[in-house]
């Protein structure tokens, strides 16, 4: 059983920790200690990963040798570890999936026993890293343009598939002078009256949700007025964090984030009309070096079970109305 | 011809430290290397020890060649059997006194080191202090540890770099006596660097004067301090009565050479080879100036009498140091000292007239200032 998940899920509380099988994440729980060790054991160069192609196999054993040399001193400190198998596949996911995807991954693991490692960030940033050789196996973008560019440049297996359509919302923290008004009329008024000092969106340069937020604000004619007050998050998750932290009067973030229990507890939100911005066609694709585990997860994401979770987080599914 | 035993050093370079030095020291002999600070003495010592490598030269010790620039030989310091006592002692602060001494015994079998180390510490009167760290020892005790450590190496040559400069006078005198005592045990050449001439006189068999890296004169301390080869050396050995004169004539019958100086004619020890009219410098150690005593006149007053006015009379302890300006040329003070009671009885005070005799045997002639006497 290969463990190793991001700790995103591990700390939430006793209930979550024990959901599913032991070894979900490195924890202090004695039951999990063995799994924790197994986690460490994946660093041992025992079996090459089952990846396609001979170059990969040869390279991996050399890579394993290198790892052994680099880690040998540190191993002297580690307890004797049972030799273990493969590393779970790495998924690069747009930040709007911060809460939705772990739920899906959890359910995937419950069903198949397979664990995946999730990393969240802005879609544009991931696209850049992938071009530089980052070891992701599955890329879930919030903007299909990135996926199609990568496909065209030969980094992917095909063009992937549309997995969801996202929405943006206006979010205001508790105690903010702004109203959760999706038509942004109140924001306009607030700008006039000087009630707005800071407003958070994701960075339009490389975060799709940021770009859509900018489009919506422009559509409403507020861009010029609000631009000096804007605070940019590296990704939409950080934007949500800024928006709800109390140091900003509010922001425009992903619907999927606002719906999550953690964020919704911090403020109120309202949907912004979809036609105020280009659609958030969220596309995912397997990358060139993807293994069978990643492929299985890719398939799982398109099953009804996964789609149900997407729906839970406010995503519109391809083929269904918004 | 250089005899095989002993230390022979010849060094030459222009930069960064100018050197033009030559010295020798026989086994069991103490050679004092004197000169003003910055004169290159420490550099010479370090060249012998091997921590400095001059451009050109030779260092030979007991028949071994340690450094020969022409032959391309330069033994690193740790392969030379040299014992060095540094000005600051340079003890290893993290080792005990015994540890410091034993650190130099790498060439001896391990079981013997402890015993021999203790014996050495006893030799320098430090028995009982073996376990102390340098920080727990006084300056004089540290110096002794440094000496013991230098000896522990069983060195072929012992080098002492101003070993007494860092201690107070009383300790210095005691240590000087102890080094003098140690001489009986020392069978290797010893080079002692100092700027203190009294120390040199007390301890050394021979003395070399070094200035700006050049050896100016080598000889017994007595020779060098009373018969310097040049005015420069005279100044370096602290001879104050240094004057210019002109050879006036020779008197072979009386065994005298006459000098014209300060409007007077002075009789000096004979130097028949000097031409009449030739310019010379001459020097007279303080001890050869004799006061004409009003309370006790003597025949000696006929030898080179000089009348003058006392310019300064400084009492230091029980000695009065007098500067006398000759009447015939008040620009030239003559320095001498007398016991304080004599000065008082003769009423010597600034402004008072007095007369002295300059003893001919002490007058030493040298080439005029700026030239070195090759005959010297």
């Amino acid at each position, binding site marked *: 059983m290969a463990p190793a998940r991001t700790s995103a899920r591990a700390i939430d509380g006793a209930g979550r920790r024990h959901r599913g099988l032991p070894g979900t994440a490195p924890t202090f729980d004695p039951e999990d200690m063995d799994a924790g060790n197994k986690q460490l054991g994946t660093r041992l160069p025992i079996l090459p990963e089952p990846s396609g192609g001979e170059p990969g196999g040869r390279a991996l054993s050399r890579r394993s040798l290198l790892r052994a040399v680099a880690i040998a001193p540190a191993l002297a400190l580690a307890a004797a570890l049972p030799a273990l198998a493969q590393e779970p596949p790495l998924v690069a996911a747009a930040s709007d999936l911060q809460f939705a995807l772990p739920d899906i991954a959890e359910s995937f693991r419950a069903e198949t026993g397979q664990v995946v490692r999730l990393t969240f960030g802005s879609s544009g940033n991931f696209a850049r890293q992938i071009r530089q050789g980052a070891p992701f196996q599955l890329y879930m973008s919030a903007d299909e343009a990135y996926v199609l560019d990568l496909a065209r440049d030969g980094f992917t297996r095909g063009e992937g598939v549309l997995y969801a359509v996202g929405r943006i919302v206006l979010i205001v923290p508790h105690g903010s002078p702004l109203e959760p008004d999706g038509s942004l009329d109140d924001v306009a008024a607030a700008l006039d009256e000087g009630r707005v000092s800071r407003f958070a969106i994701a960075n339009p340069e490389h975060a799709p949700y940021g770009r859509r937020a900018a489009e919506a604000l422009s559509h409403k004619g507020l861009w010029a007025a609000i631009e000096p007050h804007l605070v940019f998050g590296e990704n939409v998750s950080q934007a949500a964090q800024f928006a709800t932290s109390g140091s900003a009067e509010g922001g425009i973030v992903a619907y999927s984030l606002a719906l999550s229990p953690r964020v919704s507890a911090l403020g109120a939100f309202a949907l912004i009309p979809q036609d105020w911005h280009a659609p958030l066609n969220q596309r995912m694709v397997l990358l060139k070096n993807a293994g069978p585990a990643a492929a299985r997860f890719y398939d799982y994401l398109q099953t009804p079970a996964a789609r149900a979770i997407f729906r839970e987080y406010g995503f519109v599914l391809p083929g269904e109305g918004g | 011809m250089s005899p095989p035993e002993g230390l022979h050093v010849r060094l030459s370079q222009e930069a960064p430290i100018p050197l033009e030095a030559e010295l020798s020291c026989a086994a069991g002999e103490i050679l004092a290397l004197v000169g003003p600070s910055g004169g290159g003495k420490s550099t010479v010592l370090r060249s012998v020890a091997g921590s400095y490598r001059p451009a050109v030269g030779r260092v030979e010790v007991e028949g071994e060649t340690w450094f020969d620039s022409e032959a391309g030989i330069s033994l690193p310091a740790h392969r030379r059997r040299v014992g060095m006592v540094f000005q600051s002692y340079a003890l290893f602060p993290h080792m005990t006194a015994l540890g410091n001494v034993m*650190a130099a015994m790498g060439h001896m079998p391990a079981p013997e080191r402890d015993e021999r180390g203790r014996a050495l510490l006893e030799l320098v009167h430090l028995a009982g202090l073996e376990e102390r760290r340098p920080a727990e020892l006084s300056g004089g005790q540290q110096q002794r540890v440094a000496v013991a450590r230098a000896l*522990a190496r069983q060195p072929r040559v012992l080098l002492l770099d101003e070993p007494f400069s860092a201690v107070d006078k009383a300790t210095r005198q005691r240590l000087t006596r102890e080094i003098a005592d140690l001489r009986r045990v020392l069978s290797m050449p010893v080079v002692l660097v100092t700027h203190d001439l009294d120390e040199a006189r007390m301890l050394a068999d021979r003395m070399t004067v070094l200035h700006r890296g050049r050896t100016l004169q080598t000889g017994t301390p007595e020779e060098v301090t009373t018969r310097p080869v040049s005015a420069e050396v005279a100044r370096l050995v602290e001879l104050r009565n240094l004057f210019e004169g002109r050879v006036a004539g020779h008197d072979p019958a009386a065994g005298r050479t006459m000098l014209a100086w300060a409007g007077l004619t002075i009789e000096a020890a004979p130097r028949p080879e000097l031409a009449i009219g030739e310019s010379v410098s001459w020097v007279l150690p303080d001890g050869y100036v004799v006061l004409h005593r009003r309370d006790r006149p003597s025949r000696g007053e006929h030898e080179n009498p000089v009348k003058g006015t006392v310019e300064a009379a400084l009492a230091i302890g029980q000695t009065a140091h007098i500067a006398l300006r000759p009447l015939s040329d008040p620009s030239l003070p003559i320095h001498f000292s007398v016991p304080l009671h004599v000065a008082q009885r003769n009423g010597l005070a600034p402004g008072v007239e007095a007369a002295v005799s300059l003893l001919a045997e002490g007058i030493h002639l040298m080439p005029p200032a700026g030239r070195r006497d090759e005959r010297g």
Partner: protein
Amino acid sequence: MDWTALWLSLRLAGVTILFLLPLGIWAGRLLAYRDFPGKGLAEALVALPLVLPPTVFGYYLLVAFGAASPLGQLWQSVFGTPLVFTFEGLVAASILFNIPFAVQPMQRGFEAIPAEVREAAACCGMSPWQALAKVELPLAWPGILTGMVLSFAHTLGEFGIVLMVGGSIPGETRTVAIAIYDRVQAFDDAAAAEMSSLLLAISLAAIALTFAFSRRIGRRLG
């Protein structure tokens, strides 16, 4: 508490100081003992990571061994992975940006040994290696240890360079510092707080230790 990230951070710091120990002793000793043309430049280069913004350093590291660079491609052809986004890449970056933290205290440690003491060691018949072992290291060890402690603590805390060169790959390059950043973005303040206070405690301990050692450098040779 992300134990994977913590273990990763500890491993990164540990491997870094393993490399920096000999490198620092060599460089610190060289700078302490010798004067040579260009020494000022050498010392400035050693100090550079102290003043350079981490992102500038990270940028140049990417240029130097990113996937597009000759070094990166050489690495890729030998080992099959890029140098960036890997633990090995982090180790390389970490060794480089910790140079001043390792070298400068070690240099001070060696400088504190009077030149005459070193000459005395040679006059006692100790070869350079013997002098190093018996005299120099025992006297310079507070400086050496300070260098190690500072490098270790600094590596644990480094963020910008690690993020740029390593990304945030769990189990591979997601150190504790990155994990904290990640937890904040995930609205997981509890985890972020936990890991932050751990890093704070480690940093405080490191600073206290280095001050204690600095005092010893002075006392030892006093």
